[in-house]
């Protein structure tokens, strides 16, 4: 047996925008075992329900994570709306769908850039982020914020998307589609990109199922799971199919996410085409009393929300299960037997969102 050595990885590391610590047990260049230790971003915001009322918690929930911010705010509001029996106006549901897809778009382009950065392709990183800025411009135009939108509230949304804004969004979608086609060519066909991604970190369908992986990570292993098919918000009225790949390696995950960029563009176009006129928020009366559990699809996978109210403004409990938490087990599995040089790629490939996971 070769000599074993333990190398600490993180919490501060050039590849990682966020702190996560891994103890890597190496035999020569091969990883035998990876032991994650977390808690660097733990804030304890679920406990804030004792100090903030259920309306204020919508803003706290948005700050669980800055990248999937809209999804968390939406998931929380929808859960409370179910407890209180509020009927959200149809237009608000469509607006939420448009914003949700815009945030998915910016998240996936951000991931594509970080992935390019992880395998050392700086030019591609900059190109991805250049396209992403156009999406952020759309978000800023419609909500006023760049990464934290703060447009959700219990009962609906607080801002409307006017016809002029809709036209601007559609124009941007044309631009993003055109540019992403060029990026796709590099990601999918470039020889050096392929040599870093093909066959790296393979996770089979059985493994992905047994480890409970979620989102694009599971879809790249051939599991057709997409919570949007459940039809929450306005997704039930739009045409979509989960995008899957059967490779199970980094290349497959990249293929799935790039496919989802085009899917999001398509969904935004459909939603803008079908958006009904009407109110954007329902009147909220009383306090939540009861409990509800719901599942939505975040850019990184399935996120679960649980809220229990007791008839007072302060909730009894709010609980979130985030996709990265589900995917960490899969990550540790793919790290076994990987080369030391591929660790950066493998960590980025699950699109880790540590601040979601630790809250």
């Amino acid at each position, binding site marked *: 047996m070769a000599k074993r050595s333990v190398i600490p990885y993180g*919490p*501060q*590391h*050039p590849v990682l*925008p*966020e*702190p996560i610590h891994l103890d890597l047990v190496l035999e020569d260049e091969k990883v035998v075992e990876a032991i994650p230790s977390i*808690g*660097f*971003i*733990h*804030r*304890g*915001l679920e*406990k*804030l329900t004792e*100090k903030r009322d259920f309306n204020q918690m919508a*803003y*706290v929930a948005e*700050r*669980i*994570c*800055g*990248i999937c*911010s809209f999804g968390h705010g939406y998931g929380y509001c929808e859960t409370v709306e179910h407890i209180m029996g509020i009927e959200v106006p149809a237009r608000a549901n469509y607006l939420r769908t448009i914003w949700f897809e815009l945030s998915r778009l910016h998240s996936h382009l*951000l991931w594509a*850039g970080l992935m390019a950065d992880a395998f050392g392709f700086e030019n591609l*990183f*900059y190109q991805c*982020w*250049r396209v992403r*800025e156009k999406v*952020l411009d759309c978000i800023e135009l419609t909500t006023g*914020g*760049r*990464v*934290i939108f703060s447009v959700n509230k219990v009962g609906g949304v607080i801002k409307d998307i006017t016809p002029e804004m809709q036209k601007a969004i559609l124009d941007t979608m044309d631009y993003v589609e055109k540019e992403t086609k060029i990026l796709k060519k590099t990601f999918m066909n470039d020889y050096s990109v392929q040599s870093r991604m093909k066959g790296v970190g393979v996770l089979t369908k059985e493994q992905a199922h047994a480890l409970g992986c979620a989102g694009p990570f599971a879809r790249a292993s051939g599991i057709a799971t997409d919570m949007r098919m459940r039809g929450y918000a306005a997704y039930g009225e739009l045409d979509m199919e989960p995008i899957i790949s059967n490779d199970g390696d980094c290349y497959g995950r990249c293929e799935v996410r790039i496919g989802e960029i085009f899917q999001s563009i398509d969904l935004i176009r459909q939603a803008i085409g079908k958006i009904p006129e009407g109110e954007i928020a329902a009147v909220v009366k009383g306090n939540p009393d009861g409990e509800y559990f719901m599942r939505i699809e975040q850019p990184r996978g399935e996120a679960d929300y649980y809220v229990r109210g007791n008839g007072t403004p302060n909730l009894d409990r709010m609980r979130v299960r985030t996709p990265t938490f589900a995917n960490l087990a899969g990550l540790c599995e793919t790290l076994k037997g990987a080369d030391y040089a591929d660790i950066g790629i493998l960590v980025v490939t699950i699109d880790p*969102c540590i*601040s979601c996971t*630790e809250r």
Partner: protein
Amino acid sequence: MYKITRSPWVMHYDGSSCNGCDIEVLACLTPVYDAERFGIINTGDPMQADILLITGSINTQNAPVVKQIYSQMSDPKVVVAVGVCACTGGVFKDCYNILGGADQVIPVDVYVPGCAARPQAIIDGIVKGIGVFQERLEKLENGTLKQEEKEDTEEKKEED
């Protein structure tokens, strides 16, 4: 004596931020905002960094990490707290695991507020940081920087 007007190397560490400020720090360095035209480069090595950008508040687990990164940076060094969490603790101030802003464990020179801080504000903060860096450099050459630090620590002890 030489004068520093541009080209600081920055290092970014995510305290316990929600990611919003982190991706805005990265957005500063990419096209559109392109801080590299001022020579601002993001480095992963604290020993090569002039300015530490810290996002997010301090909690019990990351306090020693932040202290260690700060102590590894060579003099003169400047700390810029990005985002309202790094300034005071922000929306998470009342959480049980939050000690407060970055100034709880290391001296902070420039505060950039915002949730999330906009790239323009972050670049402005870094440029202000260069001014502080220049002052420190002059003091370092006069030999007064170490003395000042000693006075600071003595003051803190008296407060305790």
